[in-house]
């Protein structure tokens, strides 16, 4: 798939009780690209992510990863074939330690979950420490995850998502609920990790400063559809985007 599209979404729709949360969305993300989906609340961004990661089954359309059709696969299988994900609210294992959070993800992704006789503490200590190091959590490895700040919990989630060594990472509002300082740190962290691991990123975000400082491609969603797609410069200049965000009437 050298140079080809890593993730492709073709004519994807989801209709909830007659309401089209996502309709006819087509999107292609090239390997190594950093892409953002933006749009007002209720535009269907989270549903789009849930369709891609198997949490919601599409009404119609297709999702392809590296050319392979993954439409309708259950989440636990999709997470095993190269898609990592963080959720809108920090979705971690609250009463486990930070170390155990990341280690659990490593154990699962590397197929150790069926081992019911070895001591789990002895597995992947170095790998887990390396992940904590790269997400800036090494100092808090032994803390109970749920007691840390919200920003730290999002970092843990990133660590969990990276444990599967994903090709593409889907981040649903990576800075939601963060302070300005935490947002800046997250931006730096994501930039570095994407570069180090040559990751493909697809994220949704409300913070426009964040979006325009990292995204190479932006798709604007409105009422379940992608209305404009293009480079940051194109999006910045687009009248339709302004209309959606500023709500001006013709």
């Amino acid at each position, binding site marked *: 798939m050298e140079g080809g599209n890593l993730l492709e979404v073709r004519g994807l729709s989801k209709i909830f009780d007659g309401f089209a949360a996502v309709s006819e969305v087509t999107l292609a993300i090239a390997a190594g690209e950093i892409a953002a989906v933006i749009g007002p609340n209720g535009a269907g961004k989270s549903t789009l992510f849930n369709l891609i*990661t198997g*949490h919601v089954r599409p009404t119609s359309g297709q999702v392809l990863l590296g050319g392979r059709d993954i439409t309708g696969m*259950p*989440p*636990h*299988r999709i*997470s*095993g074939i190269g898609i990592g*994900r963080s*959720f809108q609210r920090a*979705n*971690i*294992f*609250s*009463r*486990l*330690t930070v170390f*155990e959070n990341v*280690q*659990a*993800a490593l*154990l*699962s*992704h590397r197929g*150790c*979950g*069926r*081992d*019911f*006789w*070895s*001591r*789990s*503490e002895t*597995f992947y200590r170095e790998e887990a420490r390396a992940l904590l190091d790269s997400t800036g959590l090494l100092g808090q490895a032994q803390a109970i995850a749920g007691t840390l700040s919200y920003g730290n919990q999002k970092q843990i989630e990133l660590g*969990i998502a990276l*444990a*599967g060594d994903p090709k593409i990472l889907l981040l649903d509002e990576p800075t939601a609920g963060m302070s300005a300082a935490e947002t800046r740190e997250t931006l730096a962290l994501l930039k570095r990790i994407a570069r180090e691991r040559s990751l493909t990123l697809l994220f949704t975000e409300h913070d426009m400063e964040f979006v325009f400082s990292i995204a190479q491609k932006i798709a604007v969603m409105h009422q379940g559809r992608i209305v404009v797609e293009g480079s940051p410069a194109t999006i910045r200049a687009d009248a339709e985007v302004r209309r959606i965000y500023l709500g001006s009437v013709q």
Partner: protein
Amino acid sequence: MTVPWSGNRIPWTLMVFLAALWVPWLGSRYDTFLGTQIAIDALFAVSLNLLLGTTGLVSFGHVAYFGIGAYICGILMKTYGVPFALALPAAWLGAAGFALVFGFFCVRLTKIYFAMLTLAFSQIAWAICFKWNGVTGGDQGLPDVPYPDLDWMSALPGLDGLRVSDRFYLLTLALVAVSLAALRRIIGSPFGRMLTAIRENPERAAFIGVNVRRYELAAFVVAGGFAGLAGALFGIFNRGVFADYLYWTKSAEVMIMAILGGMEHFWGPVVGAATLVMLNQQITSYTEYWPFVLGVILLVLLFAFPGGIVGGLVAGVNWLRRRGGGRQSA
């Protein structure tokens, strides 16, 4: 996470086990009776806690596998004259097999619906045992299940003078100890870590690649198997198997043991079982209002120590340590 065998800790479990071994010599016949009851209930409660505390699954029908194990062992030993050494593993496998079939449906539901379905299956099992006269003895039950042949114990040094009930106590203690060690090992394994991940966050667990239903089913089967083992021992201990072993109130009782002792800790349910059995014996000799006293004790515990007895003890020890540490640094 606590590491039970790290060098500088006191091996409490080993000490309790060694002390319990001496009961037939140091205690009365009644103490042996209590000891056997506690050991069996401890295994039953720990097996439930694999679901409750480790995986976060609230099963209201765990007694089904306890009762099925008791019937399988009892029927094999009494009706077919199968030796205990075969009847016991058969009870273990049989209970696990039923847990596999019932659990297959139960894990398709979550939360209260899961709990209700486990309850429904246990009530179906109870009704069948209550009515199936030809096999289970129906409402008459299956009295006079024979003791296993324990004459081989006479060959062991120091054991030749013991009563058969004392010998059965020692056998029960050994089997329960081995079972608890196995369960502890399972909970500490990568498989056990996946179960805790499911308890903490099933959605996230699925997105690190865990097939949540399948792991829940596996936990259900393991828990059912060990409950069956406890049931088999209980049938022999009680010299008979009766349909009320499967009645739903016993599911509540074992759940109280786990919560009372503390379901966050491996040994919590063991402490809960011991406490409940001893309290029951003590209080019923003073008053017939045992359920009332139990209710009050539970209320106090749930409000004062939501982590159960063991949770409260651990919190207390940590508090003392912090105070001690504070003084040293001051």
